[in-house]
Structure formats: C-alpha cells, structure tokens
C-alpha cells in the first residue's frame, strides 16, 4: 500500500477560535492532528486507550479524549485546547491561576487535559462539591499530585468564577 494511494479527506475545524482546513488520512487521530498538523502540543498522549485523559480537549462544549477520536470526526466542530484556555486579553483563566495557586500540578503532563476537563466540569456544574469534583475528573489520571490540590485548584477557580474569594491555602 503506497502512502500516495491513501485518500486524504478534507477536515475543517475551528481550533481555539481559528478556522483551519487540512487534508488528512481517515485514520489520523485527533490528538495527532492537533499535535503534529497544528503544532498544538499542549494535549499529551499518556495511554492511547482513553484511560488517562492527558489528551482531553473540549469539542463543542464537551470533554473529549482526543487519542480515541479520528480527526475526521471533528469535522465542522469547534475544538478548544489548553492553548486556547487563557482569556482573550491574555490573562490566565481562573483554572490556570487556581492550579498554580493551589499547587495542582507537578510534572505538568496531565495538566492540559485536567484543565480542559475541569473547564467543562465547571460549565456543567459551576459550584461543585468536593465529591462532585472528584467524580468529575475521574477520567483524568495524575501520577504526581494525589489529586488533593487539584480538587482545591478547581474549587479556587469555581469560587473566583462565582465572584467569591477562595480561602484555603495550598497544602
């Protein structure tokens, strides 16, 4: 089978607010499309089996593990990656701030996926309890933090987005 014989298919996706069109092989995974075609290397690959969530991005308001979705399936969609999370004026999103303030990351490998999952979680449930946060991020694995400070980081962001001050310090 010659590479040139494989038909490529046009894909049009709005990524972080910018419309992009590329021709891709049908088997191209969305994570590879983002990382290698568009050079958006924020989302990572941790397991290839949709367990770890390091590749999580937002597609049309939903959390998606981009390692188990074909790029062609995203045709016509709006995709937001961690590179598109900061506010339009360049200031950091409350979640990005919260993760730093509450020491919600260490090696940083799960962080982009975790942030994008948390963003959708807070859009669905703006003021979650600790248990709701823990269930809400159960599709995203972190090997470094033990999650406790990630929970706090999300609580920090929820408080800020709701116009409240988050009192608790990072442990």
């Amino acid at each position, binding site marked *: 089978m010659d*590479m040139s014989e494989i038909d490529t298919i046009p894909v049009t996706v709005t990524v972080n607010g910018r419309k992009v069109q590329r021709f891709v092989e049908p088997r191209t995974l969305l994570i590879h499309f983002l990382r290698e075609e568009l050079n958006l290397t924020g989302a990572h690959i941790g397991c290839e089996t949709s*367990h770890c969530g390091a590749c999580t991005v937002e597609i049309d308001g939903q959390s998606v593990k981009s390692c188990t979705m074909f790029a062609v399936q995203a045709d016509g969609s709006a995709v937001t990656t961690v590179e598109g999370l900061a506010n339009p004026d360049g200031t950091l999103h409350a979640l990005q701030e919260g993760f730093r303030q509450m020491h919600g990351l260490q090696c940083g490998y799960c962080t982009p996926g975790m942030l994008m999952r948390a963003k959708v979680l807070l859009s669905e449930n703006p003021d979650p309890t600790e248990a709701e946060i823990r269930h809400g991020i159960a599709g995203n694995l972190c090997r470094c933090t*033990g999650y406790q400070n990630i929970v706090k980081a999300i609580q920090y962001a929820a408080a800020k987005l709701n116009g409240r001050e988050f009192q608790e310090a990072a442990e």
Partner: protein
Amino acid sequence: MNEMVITREQREARLEGMGCKRKRVEDIRFTQGKGQYVDDIKLPGMLHGDFVRSQYAHARIKRIDASRALALPGVIAVITAEELKPLGLHWMPTLAGDVQAVLADGKVCFQNQEIAFVVAENRYVVDDALQLVEVEYEELPVLVDPFTAMDPDAPVLRPDLDGKTVGAHGPRKHHNHIFEWTIGDKAATDEAFNSAEVTIKELISYHRTHPSPLETCQCLASFDKVKGELTLYGTFQAPHVIRTVASLLSKIPEHKIHVIAPDIGGGFGNKVGAYSGYICAIVASIVTGLPVKWVEDRMENLSTTSFARDYHMTTEIAATKDGKVTGLRVHVLADHGAFDACADPSKWPAGFMNIVTGSYDFPVAHLAVDGVYTNKAPGGVAYRCSFRVTEAAYCIERAMDVLAQKLGMDPADLRMKNFIRREQFPYQSALGWEYDSGDYHLAMQKAMDAIGYRELRAEQKARQDAFRRGETREIMGIGVTFFTEIVGAGPSKNCDILGVAMFDSAEIRIHPTGSIIARMGSKSQGQGHETTWAQIIATELGIPADDIMIEEGNTDTAPYGLGTYGSRSTPVAGAAIAMAARKIKNKAQMIAAHLLEVSEYDLEWDIDGFRVKGNPERSKTMKEIAWAAYNAPPPGLEPGLEAVNYYDPPNMTYPFGAYFCVMDIDVDTGVARIRRFYALDDCGTRINPMIIEGQVHGGLTEAFAIAMGQEIKYDEMGNVQGASFMDFFLPTAVETPHWETDHTVTPSPHHPIGAKGVGESPNVGGVPCFSNAVNDAFGFLGSTHIQMPHDAWRVWEAAKRLGLHQ
C-alpha cells in the same frame, strides 16, 4: 534610589528564600500547554521508530523476515541484532554488571522483548510495517516462579552465560543464579536466635509493579554526519550518565554528544536506565543520517522498560518476652527477570536493602539476597524510593507487626520500645550504616496524639466485639508504620554508577545587574527544582528568587551530575548549590570590603548584603556587589562573580516518618475504605513546605496504588498481564483518600542546609502502612500475614480463607 525604607522582614520576604511556600515557576508554562516534552520536539526530516516484540516469554528465533515490511512505501530500515553485530551494539552492559540484548540475539527471554527496530517516515507507517515483519519462533519451557528458578532441571534462560561461574557480584550457584549478597554477623545473629525467648518467621513478598509515569520513555536522536556529532533528546533522569554511556557504547567522543533532557512528564525511577529504544534510535539516526524519534506506548512501557520490586523476603525477628528485639535475619529471593538491569549503584546488587533494620536498635542482624533470572522483563528500578529501601521498609514494618501480634503487644508500643534513641545518633546500624540524625520517639508520639491512637484502638476493640456478635460485617484496621530511609547516594567511597562517583554539582553565575543563572547536575521530573533551587540561592546570596533562573538537563551547559532519583537531589545537588553560593559569598565579601574600605573581618552578612559590624548604615547589597564584580573588582582579584561546586556528600541522609492509616473493610466484598491517613514526615530543613506537601500527597497516592492493587502479573506461560491502564491500577481522584500531613524537623548535621530529601518517603512509609492496616484488621481473626497487593478480590479471598463467608 528612591526606594522606601523597608523592614528586615520585608527584605527577607521579598527574597522568597528557604522555608516559604513559593509558587512554582514551572507552572506558568505547564498551565498554558507550553511545556516542552520529548514528543513535542520535531526536527526536519524526522523519522519514527518502534519495535517488533516477542509474543513469547521464552523462545528461540528461527527466522526474521523483514522483506514485506521493507517493501512498504515509507519504510526506511528494519534493524535486527544481525545489523547491530558489526557495530558491537547487539548487547549492552547493564548498570548491574550484567549484559542485556539490545535486540534479541537468536533467542527471546521475556514477552515483548525487542526483536527488530522498524524505521519509517511517520508513526502510522511504522505501525503498519511492524505487522509485516515475520518472526518464526521455537517455543522453549518458561520459567515464571522465582522459587523454582534454581531447581536442578530449571530451564536455562541465559546460554550466553554458559560456564560463567562468577558474575559481577561473586560466585553463581546455578545457571539461573545471578548473585548472592550477604552482610552482617551471621554467627552472632544465629546465636541471638538460638537463645531467643520469642521468634517470628514470615515470608513477606513485595510484588512486581511499575513506576508508570504518565509520559512514557522516549527519545529523539539526531546524528550530524558532517560534524560527527550526536544530539540526543530524551526522558532522562540522569542525562550526563546517558551521555557517558552513549559515548562508551557508540565510540562517539563524549564532547560530540549533546544530551538534552527537556521537560519530563514524571519519572519515579522509570527513566534512570538505558533502554534498547535509545540505542536503536541512535543507530538508526547514524545509519539514515536523519533524526529518529522513539516513543514507547503504554503497553511497551508497562511490559518492558523497568519493573520495580519483586522481592520475596523471608524475615525472622528474635526478641525477649517483653518485646525487646535481639536479632534480625532476612533472606531475600530477588526476581530480576531475564537480564539483571537493576538500577542500583554499581557495588550494591541489592541496593540499600541493608537499611532493613529500620528505625530499631537491633544489636545484631544478617541479610542474604539471592538474585535469580526468570522469563520476565528486566529492570528492578527504584520506583519512588532509594534503591530497595521501600522493600526494606516494607519487610521490617510488616515483621514488627507480626512480632507485636505474637507478643500480644500494641504495635506502636513495640516500636516505641525498640526505637533508636535520640542520644544514640549518629547511630551505627548492625548492617553497616551510620544514621545521621533522628528523634523517633518525639515524631511517633506527636503522630499518635494527632490521630488519637488510643481512642482508635478502643473503637477497634468495640467493633471487633460487634463483629464477633454478628452485628456488623465490617472490620476495622489501624496501620502503624515508622520508617527510616537512606537517601542521597552517595559518598563516592560507597557509590558509583559504572565507575562514575555519585557526587552532584551546581554552577551559579551572577550577572552584572545582579540576576542569576544557575545550572545543575540534577534533573526535575516534576519535583519543581526551578522553584526550590532558586530558594536556596535566594537565602544564601540575598538575591530574590524571581531574579534567579535555574537550568537543568542540557549536558553541554550544566556541570556533570548523576541526576535525580533515590531522593538524591536535595541531599546532594541541594548541597552543591549551597556550597557554590558560599564560594560566591566569600568573594562577594572581599568585594564589599573593598567598596566599603574596611577589612573583610569587619563585615557581617545581613539578609541581602554585607554591612559593617557596629555600623549597619554602611552596607553593600549583593546587587551592588555584583555590579562592582564586573566594574570595579578589588586589585588582584579576578573580575566576575560565579562558582561551581561538585559535592561529594560525607554520608547519606536518613529521613524518617510516622504514618497511620485507619481502614474499614467489608469482609463480604473485600472493599477497603480508607477512613483516615495521617503522615508525619521529618525531612530535616524544609525548603518549600508547599512542594513538600505535594510530594507527600503524590507519594502516598502511589503507595496506596501499590499496596491496594497495582501489580505486573504473569501467567504460567509468561504472558504479562496488567500491561495497560485497563488492568494496571492507577487510582483516580475517586479512590484516592484524603491525606493529612504533618512534620517534625531534625536537620541533617552533615548537610550544608540540613535538608534530607522527601519525595520518596511517602512511598516508603505508605506501602507498609496500608498493608499493616489490612493485616491489622484481620489480625484478631487469627491471620498473621496477608500478601500484597490488597485489592478487593484478594481481600475477599483472605476473608474466605479465614472462614468468614459461611
């Protein structure tokens, strides 16, 4: 300067030096997706490579046919052992003094062993081509159980060692024997047992598991044929060692090898070793003249690059009737897999397993370790622990509970009775270590008070009575652990890696305007070195941490270091950076004296500069001194303000801690619910309490995983089970308990800033604590020891064995 007068406290606070919860520098890029990990790097013309792997655990390779793969458009090369032979690279030396096949040389010894390296234009074509390489096998009998490895009729796993009766660590007793390592006074220990009032004996196994960082092992090799230079990006916890090894193996001069470890997505010991993927990517780049990237997938990671543990420890304690320990005797059967690729200092085939006397004053002890080959993946890395220290801590902490049960003593009281006392430090252990400092009684008492230990025992008693009366199907366990680690390898008199002494290094340069770049021999994989090293310099030199940039991982610019593992960064590199700073400070004092026209001896240090004793109005800040160092150095003094330090520690450090776990187990489902987990750590001087707590949380979570279910299992055919995240237990936020943390501070007397290291303590202390809680829950029903891991199925089985399911 129109600067407002600020207080000493404000001057100190703005440094963000040691002891403050400085927010992490790294987070700014990581939260915006701007970290740079190996797989994020793309070079022009870059190719991809991956392995054809063995489907069998033990087989002869009769034929490899790559013709169909090579015919696939986009495939550049297929490399087998035959191609590597002329280069002498088909085998490579291991850190443990053995050799390991880079690509299978006529035979495979574990499932998923590397057979051929396929190089193609992109990763999809590589995957296509892997399916097209035909390998014909002849199956051989498989050896999985280490307890049968030295049976007379056991299969010969390593014909390459045929006739070799002496290995890297002494005589070999059998064709599957690797080494026997013994330490301690055997005769005196045997005598202690012969005259003992009470003895216990238990086989305590620590199962095979895997560090499994979220980023797998990967590299990108780029060989410049014109310059004869190799650039190697990789997930390296020890980049300089990789450079030296790459030079020795490839014969490329070391100065022409540029090893760069960019951001690393977790290591936990997995990224210390040198793997076939690195060698093959380098060779492929040399052969093709193009950059070649190798990225493991998760299954390859879990099944090939470096397992951890697999220690089977027959443990005996001798004691008096009233609970004073009089002797410890341990025999370890160590399953090293198909090649002995343990990542230990070269002279230590069983790592620092001889810390197995733990926190207790054993007058005599003896340890013997037998390493054997089996048809399993090689490795034996220190998964978030100093070398074999978690095995040692598990062994002694479980055994102390077994002894307490036999004596009818409370396990906390038994520990208190046998602790090394504060006044005994520095303490010479029966197995050869000199513990630097500790106050175990203080730490244990603080922990017991904090958790309400006596009340918990009373509650447990009431619940046991209720269980016996049939009023509940839940049993309550209280896990007690007091661990002592040995970290910071190491003094060069003891420790080397392939002959390179285990020092570490720092280089600090102060620029004319008073900001700093410092380069280190260590390499963060998430520990936050860019944040904490700057804090040490800030305190030592009075320059704000925000004005200090830390650089690690580029072997061209960083001084030679042995890397980050075994909690050695703070004890060794952390000392190097303080010592380098002090060299600078000495020179700065000379410059300040010159500027202030006084003698050096008339000056004293004051937070961020020098002032004249008795005349504090006359002073020079470090920033002013830095400018002068480049602008008006004293006559006879060379300009500039920088220093390098290579630190060879006089001893290792001995962090310790008291951990308690409260657990409720449903005997009908086997599900264990962690009610509380309290961890008190003493890591000496605390550089950044926020980062320490984060390390403790993470280490406890890994300990929870290991103790409660994480395992690399093999079936009787040597098929690896659990090599994906479907089967390999990594806890999510839902299962992970809430962690309570606490501390005492006993500085290390020999470390420049008194710090001991903390990243691995929670794993070392956490595993026995969870296991002791499970065992403690079942103890009143007559059980003495239940093997890990304690997943719900095995706990349920334990309950069944005890007859609880009628």
